[in-house]
């Protein structure tokens, strides 16, 4: 095992070991203060271990593989940074006591899965990590114990389990398609286009990962869950955890033209999601819900870029999409932290929150000079041409509109007194993360092989600027329409599930009554006789 491979192991092992340490009372009591440490090995792995030789343990039997390709490294680094900053924020935000300790346990399980999906190299460990991040997030969402949080948690859990089922079936089909016993993701992806069940497998992968990434119509849990969780948990949910879906799509759907038909479908779903998120988001009153819908919209753009890359077989799509998502990890995570701060500070210090938040917010629309502008430049080869280019521009205008709406709702939060100073334990993670979201894309743009950032910025300034201006104009118009607030409930389409739920309850009642009938003696006796005869009959027929 080389040093770089050891870092891959450490990325997963660190949160797991901290979790194990919680068996001791002393360690458990201190754990809320140590959460910021847990993702640091993951950060080191992202910096030092990208594109290292995959680590294969027990190649003959277990085939446990850890690997880190360049797009995954980019996302792993950003996610680790966000988890660390949010962990530091959580230490102050959650305080101490049994509630905070419980929160720390769920945090560590979710974290291990969240980082695990970036380094897992075989189907089994990827599935395990994905299950950990999907299911344990429930504990973060219901932390406050309110009925609203509980409902959000239940919807999330139900959909997460359905997503798991889709993926399990998809993985079983992939394992079946691979010649020989290998479970490596690379082999599975190579075998996918030629598999007889190709359509079904890809459909299941898109459903399972799309659910996590918040693709319409599977996004309904996201605007419920992200606002219900405590601030630091919302930050990692929206910033890092949804990326488990993105990395899944990135790694399992080859962008080399082998699945070009699915690329078009994915791009369509992505663009629909991008506009859907804007449309539902601009009528929300709660700034956290606005942010959650913005996540839906942004993930739509990300998936649209991936889909177009698959359709066009554009080289470098994986890296470009990962770069776009990386910016979202940092910026969206930071904005959630800002919501927690805006309410507790007053006077001039409030501008320490609002001003960086405004810059980050406008970055999502592609304001030139921000990290968001570079993110938009990165996916230009995929989303820059023709009708798709126009739609992408309109969605950027929508993002500007949505984020300005967010800023209005943020300012509308009750400010603290002029003397209220935000706690340093909250302020520093926020400022650090905001700075990272603004500056890191500049440093990473070249390193990701996307070219010179200055050149990218100078190219075609009109195309970069019109969405921002259009969005701002629309926002000014929207500002007078407060009566629309609350027109769409959180989780929009969930409204339609009432009928399905009643149908399910009716089915259950019928099953209960039917089963009670079967438990009557005469019927059970008849069933036994019928079974005997049926068995004898089919066996005789087969033998004859």
């Amino acid at each position, binding site marked *: 095992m080389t040093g770089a491979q050891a870092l891959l192991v450490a990325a997963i092992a660190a949160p797991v070991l901290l979790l194990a340490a919680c068996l001791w009372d002393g360690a458990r009591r201190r754990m809320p203060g140590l959460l910021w440490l847990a993702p640091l090995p993951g950060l080191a792995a992202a910096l030092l271990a990208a594109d290292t030789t995959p680590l294969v343990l*027990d190649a*003959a*039997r*277990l085939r446990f593989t850890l690997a880190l390709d360049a797009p995954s490294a980019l996302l792993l680094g950003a996610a680790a940074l966000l988890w660390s900053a949010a962990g530091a924020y959580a230490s102050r935000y959650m305080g101490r006591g049994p509630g905070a300790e419980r929160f720390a346990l769920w945090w560590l399980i979710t974290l291990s899965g969240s980082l695990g999906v970036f380094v897992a190299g075989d189907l*089994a460990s990827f*599935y*395990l990590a994905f*299950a950990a991040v999907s*299911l344990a997030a429930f504990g973060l969402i219901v932390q406050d*114990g309110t009925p609203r949080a*509980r409902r959000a948690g*239940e919807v999330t*859990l139900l959909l997460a*389990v*359905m997503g*798991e*089922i889709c993926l*399990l*079936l998809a993985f*079983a*089909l992939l*394992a*079946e398609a691979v010649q020989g016993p290998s479970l490596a993701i690379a082999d599975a992806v190579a075998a996918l286009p030629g598999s007889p*069940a190709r359509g079904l497998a890809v459909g299941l992968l898109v459903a399972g990962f799309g659910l996590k990434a918040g693709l319409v119509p599977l996004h309904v849990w996201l605007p419920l869950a992200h606002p219900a969780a405590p601030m630091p948990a919302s930050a990692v949910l929206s910033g890092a955890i949804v990326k488990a879906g993105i990395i899944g799509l990135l790694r399992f759907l080859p962008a080399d033209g082998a699945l070009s038909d699915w690329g078009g479908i994915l791009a369509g779903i992505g663009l629909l999601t991008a506009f859907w998120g804007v449309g539902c988001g601009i009528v929300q009153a709660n700034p956290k819900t606005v942010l959650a819908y913005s996540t839906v919209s942004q993930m739509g753009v990300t998936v649209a870029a991936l889909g177009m890359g698959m359709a066009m077989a554009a080289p470098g799509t994986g890296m470009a999409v990962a770069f776009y998502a990386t910016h979202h990890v940092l910026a969206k995570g930071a904005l959630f932290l800002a919501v927690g701060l805006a309410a507790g500070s007053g006077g001039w210090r409030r501008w320490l929150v609002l001003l960086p938040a405004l810059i980050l917010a406008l970055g999502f629309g592609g304001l030139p000079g921000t990290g968001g502008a570079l993110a938009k430049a990165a996916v230009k080869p995929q989303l820059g041409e023709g009708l798709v280019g126009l739609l992408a521009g309109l969605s950027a205008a929508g993002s500007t509109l949505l984020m300005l709406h967010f800023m209005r709702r943020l300012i509308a939060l009750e400010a603290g007194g002029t003397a209220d100073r935000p706690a340093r334990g909250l302020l520093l993670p926020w400022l650090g993360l905001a700075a990272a979201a603004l500056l890191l894309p500049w440093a990473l743009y070249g390193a990701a092989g996307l070219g010179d950032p200055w050149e990218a910025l100078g190219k075609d300034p009109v195309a970069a600027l019109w969405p921002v201006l259009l969005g701002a104009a629309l926002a000014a118009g929207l500002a007078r329409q407060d009566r629309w607030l609350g027109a769409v409930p959180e989780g929009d389409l969930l409204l339609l599930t009432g009928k399905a739920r009643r149908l399910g309850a009716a*089915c*259950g009642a019928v*099953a*209960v009554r*039917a*089963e009670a009938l*079967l*438990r*009557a*003696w005469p*019927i*059970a*006796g008849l*069933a*036994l006789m019928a*079974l*005997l*005869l*049926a*068995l*004898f009959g*089919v*066996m*005789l*027929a*087969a*033998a004859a």
Partner: protein
Amino acid sequence: MSGTTPGGWLLVLALALPVGGMLLAFALGGRTAERIALGVLGLGTVLAGMIAAEVYAAGAPLAYRLGGWAPPLGLRLQADGLAAAMLLTAALVLLAVALFGRAAQATPPGVQEARAPFTFWTFLLALAASLAAAFLGGDLFNLFVALEMLTFAALSLACLDGRPSQFRSELRYLFFALIGSVLYLLGTALLYGAHGTLDIALLAERAGADLPTLLAAALMTAGLLAKMALFPLHLWLPPAHAGAPPAASALLSGLVVKAAFVLLLRLWIWVLPPVPAGAGAPLLAGLGAAAILVGSLIALRQERLKLLVAYSTVAQIGYLFLMLPLVLAGDPEAAARAWLGGILQAASHAFAKAAMFLSAGLVAGALGHDRVAELGGAGRAMPMAVIAFGLAGLSLMGIPPSGGFTAKWLLLTAALGTGQWWWAAVILGGGLLTGGYVYRVLAGSLTAPPAAAPRPEPPAQGPERVALALALVSVALGLVPLASFGLVQIGRPILGGAP
């Protein structure tokens, strides 16, 4: 035809030890019975481990001819991979239940001997003996005797509290089990008449797809299904398993139904020729699928915790039958996967369900009721029991890493590999419903108790630890590398090849 192999004496010991222990406990009684039972079950675990190691090392089944007589005259004990794996599972669960029973079934201080504890410890040993006989027996009549002993030992444990409601539900169990026995016995008589032997290895050579064999197989299968409570023959199971004391419920749901299943496998995989077996298997698997879906759905709507767990058993038994059409599909690789998946399901369900019943019993004991809607506060009063329930639930759902996950993954890939995707749909749908009822219990017990509720009495730590340990084993089964389960393939007849 195998004679006595090296290490065959271990099999005799595995059978003689609990029988001897039972007789001794019966004679000495009181607290000595408890000590004997604990000692014997501890030794039994070591012995089961040795048998498994011996079979694995030899790569071939162990066998012992009683008195040196060859079948059909003499009797044969044999341990192949299936028997060794199930014996080890049973030994571990029995030991755990015995440790759990040290608190609940202790002879009260100041008394020489009390009826309930005395019955518990002696019949626990009787159950161990009959399970060993059911796994190790080499001919169908011996297996029948073992199964009858098992039914009666299980009944006695289930009626331990002596409540009238218990007698009523256990009488239902007894009656239905007896119908099953009659059918089974008819079948053995037919087989003996046709082939002159009941030895499984000899029958495998002699039995063809002839009329008596097929009729016998149908009769015996129907009898075994009645004893296993496969849907729609499950009428007796929920009240019997839910009404028994927790330790007995754990054994009934975890182990007793599995003994009948091992017998069913012996009949279907060893004795029956592949063609009629392959034709009948989808019928059984179809009932299994119905059991999974209906059982889970009914469990989801139960208001009592123990009934919920009992219906979960109805559902989980269904998974066992899904392996039959996959093993018999004629694809050697898929057959190996399905075989391992089925046995792993039997083992992980044994651990998980025992853990579930024990922790449900602890929760019900501490709260004074087992209404699912009013479990609030249980999580705070007895976190270990609730965690045990949750971990066992994860294994039943098939969430990784757990034995249940590995089992379902193997069955799933075998189903897809043989083109029988509809079983895959059932496996996954069942997992979703299982998640639903596990969530109901967990969410209920993690809420805060109503302010007016009396503080539940926290139970003793020991039993809680036992439940947790069982749940952890069912999870840990999923962490064992698949290749080390080669054990269960030993001695399995390969279709189209020599047994």
